[in-house]
């Protein structure tokens, strides 16, 4: 499941405690002989403790409650199954067969613009995506458009060297949009299929930095009206309710097309994406599960939900 297996062995000892508490929790719920108020409350708490959020949790539970009554379900475990099914279908609904960005478009480079708050995991996730597309036989070019944070350009360049991927960079303080533009031109010249633009971390509440993002997108579209083909919101799985505000503001500013959920290898469940999908219909496309380039996988709703309800994550 995911790419977690190797890492999980290594992390086993540390996981023991959180595993026990989660097992206890689920076991408690499932072993309950009858459906009672307490069961619903416990399911609610389970979702809330996974950062799904109060409103989304209430909506889910409400729906499952009605459905359970309609189906005449009596035992706790089938209700939990029902809840899981409901979540899987919610997370899949935007899937609709097309998975933008899972495969680069033929003809002209597929341009991915990343956006996210400071430290979310953008640069690392870009390295992972680059590796992922390389494995699929695509040629990738990276744009070092984070010209603000100290060491950001070097960070991307180190990844470029490790992966054997070309990194287009100007220098600290350079114009992020101009670099993205150059990268797209370079990619065309070299016949590359994918361009991924790294951007500086920014809080969604900073208007001027939102403008900067818009400008990058605008300038890219001058070379290719379809570009950026994908605007990937990189979200830290430990993020709580603010994740929804991030998704809203970033989407409003530059129209996000999907979420890369980073750092799912910790104990946080990343449940805020459920709220994001529910409210914004923004699909979750990838998950990050470690610090190495291989530590990522396409998002699978069923596995995500199983994980959310399991002690290990």
């Amino acid at each position: 499941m995911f790419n977690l297996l190797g890492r999980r062995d290594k992390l086993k000892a540390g996981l023991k405690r959180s595993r026990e508490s989660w097992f206890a929790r689920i076991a408690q719920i499932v072993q309950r002989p009858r459906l009672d108020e307490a069961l619903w409350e416990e399911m609610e708490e389970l979702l809330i403790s996974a950062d799904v959020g109060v409103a989304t949790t209430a909506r889910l539970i409400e729906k499952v409650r009605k459905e359970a009554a309609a189906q005449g379900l009596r035992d706790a475990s089938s209700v939990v199954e029902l809840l899981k099914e409901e979540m899987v279908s919610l997370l899949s609904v935007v899937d609709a067969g097309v998975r933008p960005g899972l495969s680069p478009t033929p003809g002209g480079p597929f341009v991915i613009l990343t956006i996210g708050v400071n430290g979310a995991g953008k640069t690392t996730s870009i390295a992972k995506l680059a590796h992922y597309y390389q494995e699929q036989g695509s040629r990738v070019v990276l744009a070092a458009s984070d010209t603000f944070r100290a060491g950001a350009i070097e960070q991307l360049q180190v990844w470029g060297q490790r992966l054997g991927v070309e990194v287009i960079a100007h220098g600290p303080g350079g114009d992020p949009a101009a670099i993205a533009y150059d990268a797209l031109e370079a990619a065309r010249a070299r016949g590359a299929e994918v361009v991924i633009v790294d951007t500086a971390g920014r809080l969604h509440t900073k208007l001027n930095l939102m403008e900067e993002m818009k400008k990058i997108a605008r300038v890219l579209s001058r070379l290719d009206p379809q570009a950026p083909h994908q605007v990937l919101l990189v979200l830290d799985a430990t993020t709580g309710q603010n994740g929804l505000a991030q998704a809203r503001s970033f989407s409003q500013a530059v129209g996000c097309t999907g979420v890369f959920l980073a750092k799912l290898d910790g104990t946080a469940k990343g449940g805020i994406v459920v709220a994001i999908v529910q409210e914004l219909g923004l699909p979750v496309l990838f998950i990050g599960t470690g610090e190495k380039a291989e530590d990522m996988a396409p998002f699978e709703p069923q596995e995500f939900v199983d994980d959310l309800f399991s002690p290990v994550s």
Partner: protein
Amino acid sequence: MFEALSEKLTAVFSRLTARGRLTESEVDEGLREVRLALLEADVNFKVARDFVQRVRERAVGSQVMESISPGQQIVKIVHEEMTAILGGESPKLANAARPPTVLMLVGLQGSGKTTTAAKLALHLRRGGQRVLLVAGDLRRPAAVEQIETLGRQLDVPVYSEGIDSSAVQVCRQGVQKARDIGAAWVILDTGGRLHIDEDMMGELEEVKKATSPSELLLVVDAMTGQDAVVSAQSFHERIGLTGLIMTKLDGDARGGAALSITQVTGLPIKFIGTGERAEALETFHPDRLASRILGMGDILTLVERAQESMDQQRAKELERKIRKATFDLEDFLEQLHQVRRMGPMSQVLGMIPGFSSIARRLSPEELEGEHLKKLEAIVYSMTPKERRNPDILNGSRRRRIARGSGTTPQDVNQLLSQFRQMQKLMKQFSSGKPPRGLMGMFR
């Protein structure tokens, strides 16, 4: 967006006119709102439950004070309890008996350790002391370059051994180096790591053993959700922390993780980070964070932020106007300009008690620049006399203004009603009666 708990509680209790002692059912109804507010703010659900239980014990049967409503009574208890858990104002950094004093920063990936290390260095140096930064993150690509660059920018020396050494080795040598150059403080930056990563946690133990830090500070992202307690507790149990620094509080995250962590670990919050620049490190005020977590707005932060982006003169002037309640449409216009510089309208409004409801009613577009431009156009189409004395704006004047600004009379009316609300609020402030009896009540 902020949703004022106080407003919800007011709604809950508005039906109850009875004075005297609060009954259990009244309290419970109010506390449901409190619990929701806490969960919305990312307070851990277990912590929220215990917290509400404690408030309940205090609230049931407590005498409602003459001057305030039952809702306010509960908010007051909640606020007091919360402030108590969050601890006192930023306690001082511990000093080693013999310099250098070692500060060690630890935390999850991306929480802001390196930036915070640079901020602390600047803070201490401004106190007139010599500081050395140590590049103890050898794992994240270019982490060493990052701290070296920051050191250069701030003119603070950085000790590094590149990436072919080990964290323990670099940190040990770094402390020695600090001794050699006579630095009073040495700040160890360490690589971000997961609390469940055995090897990496072991490394921190070793660094701690090798350097005997006086302060072992966990750097926590303000946006962290329910898992904050789990990771903080693991770090604390494993290496014994001495305090917390909460970062990225310049956004609109409510920062409930701070309450969860302080409740569970009892650790003090030593600083907060409020921006990307090295200057953006602030002392911690428990009452302000409590207000923020509760969504009660934070008028002090607002005033401070206003001062940042306005020049002092203007800020003073505004303060005077607020006090004297002579806030007119010209000031409103001026405010609009300032607001643009301060950050998104939603956030600014959210910081003003009572305003969160206005912010909530505005659509996202209205909170964006376009809407502000429209408001500006309307005010610009007024005569100076009208701006200073909006009461003279009758129907024909309003129609003229709408034509002049390319808007509709409805737009003009809407602006005027918004302005009125703001004016009313300012009056309440100036009369010393905080809106809905909130802020100030706790000071």
